[in-house]
């Protein structure tokens, strides 16, 4: 009797089960596991102690955008017939990187970028880790440099909170 290798073909499998003589030599089957396609971006796991702080933005996963939370970028580029969509996306990413780096460890919320005509408004909530003088300097610094690079007026509109706990929406 020749040695036969079998794949996990169901009909062959059935055939093998019926003929016991061949079954002795059928040694191999492929094993497959269930497919694991899971959306994980923007979702947070529950911790054992339940003490992981979430802001409102973090508490709502991406599919809740436009239902429970709003976008972080507001512009007309991605509307029907909008222009400069690619440039706007790249510029927004650049602004986010620059702002988080300049205001290091101060932003408690996400950087919100709103565009109206040629004005770019950068909004957000920061902690009071700086003296007001330094904060005013950083506001001017950010507005001036971004305005020079992007060639349009930039405005920083910030709110401050005393403690990072103020912005916590829930603990998981």
């Amino acid at each position, binding site marked *: 009797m020749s040695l036969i290798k079998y794949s996990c073909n169901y009909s062959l499998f059935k055939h093998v089960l019926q003929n016991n003589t061949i079954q002795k030599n059928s040694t191999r089957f492929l094993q497959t596991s269930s497919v694991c396609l899971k959306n994980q971006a923007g979702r947070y796991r529950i911790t054992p102690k339940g003490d992981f702080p979430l802001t*409102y933005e973090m508490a709502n996963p991406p599919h809740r955008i436009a239902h*429970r939370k*709003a*976008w972080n970028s*507001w512009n007309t580029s991605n509307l029907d017939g909008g222009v400069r969509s690619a440039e706007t996306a790249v510029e927004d990413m650049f602004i986010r990187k620059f702002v988080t780096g300049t205001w290091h460890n101060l932003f408690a*919320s996400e950087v919100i970028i709103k*565009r109206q005509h*040629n004005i770019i408004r950068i909004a957000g909530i920061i902690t009071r880790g700086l003296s007001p003088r330094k904060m005013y300097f950083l506001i001017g610094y950010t507005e001036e440099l971004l305005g020079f690079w992007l060639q349009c007026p930039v405005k920083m509109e910030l709110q401050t909170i*005393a403690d990072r706990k103020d912005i916590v929406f829930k603990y998981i």
Partner: protein
Amino acid sequence: MLKIFRIIERNTIEKTCLCVRYSSTDSSAEKRDEFRVLNIRKPKGRYQERKQPRTLNILPPRSESMPVDQDWGNVWPGPRSFHPATVPLPVRQGYVEKSGAPPSKYANAELVKIPNFLHLTPPVIERQCNALKQFCTPWPKALDTDEKLEKHFPLQITSSDYCFSSPSIRNPLARIVTLRFKLGSLGLNQRAKDKFLRLVGDRYDEESDSVTIVTDRCPLKKQNYDYALYLLTALYHESYNVEEWENLKTEADMEYYDWLKNKSKATIEKLFGKPHGEIENADVYADSVDKLMNEGENTYTLDKYGEAVRKLLNLPTKIEIK
């Protein structure tokens, strides 16, 4: 094992004690000009107390000290992101799964995201309109009806400007210019009108008697506008222009039936012995024959034709058979 651990512990304690002793004898060693002992952990004398973070003197929210009868337009003069300390409204935003109040306005990023119109309150809009009034001119009194408007301003030109968020104000769609006018306002004669309609094709709308010309082939709005006016001029003059080959058109080339140019007219005139303008009911007959030939034979046109023939020849009207 326990014993060993204890021994190790004792050793470490003794060592640390030694260290302390060394450091305590440090100052006396300096005096004797000997080598100083480097103590990395705790340099003596230079120890500074840790700076306590300064507590900022934060003022209470501005909205708490606002008078009730203040002018809101001065507090919020232009478009701006929401700020909880300035807006004296107890607004809340956010979705809470379990029963409870939505997040308050303080430290609420959702309120910052959405566009607000706090700078456009009704009194502010009224104030701005009053300021703009001095630049407005009254509507001309002579142009009180739509008919007069159409008569004096027959050309209607439409183009669009676009507002969008971008550092540039250029939009490629702004170049398109639409020119619209009534065909009757050109005052063409019948032949020229026929040629004009052939030239414009489906740009003519029969219901409203209007011609629409859309130009978008040039990159700028001004160029497209000029091109549209050029097209109008060219169409007008071309429709009056008669080419030599146009006179070669015979009866067989006609697109529609014209009673005045046909055999039927000649027959009627021969029958009555006078020109068709003098024959009674000849215009009704001509009209019915035109319709019969142009619209095709159906009950309506055939009935009209029968009636017209009876009228023309003074025959009695059709007898209804019961």
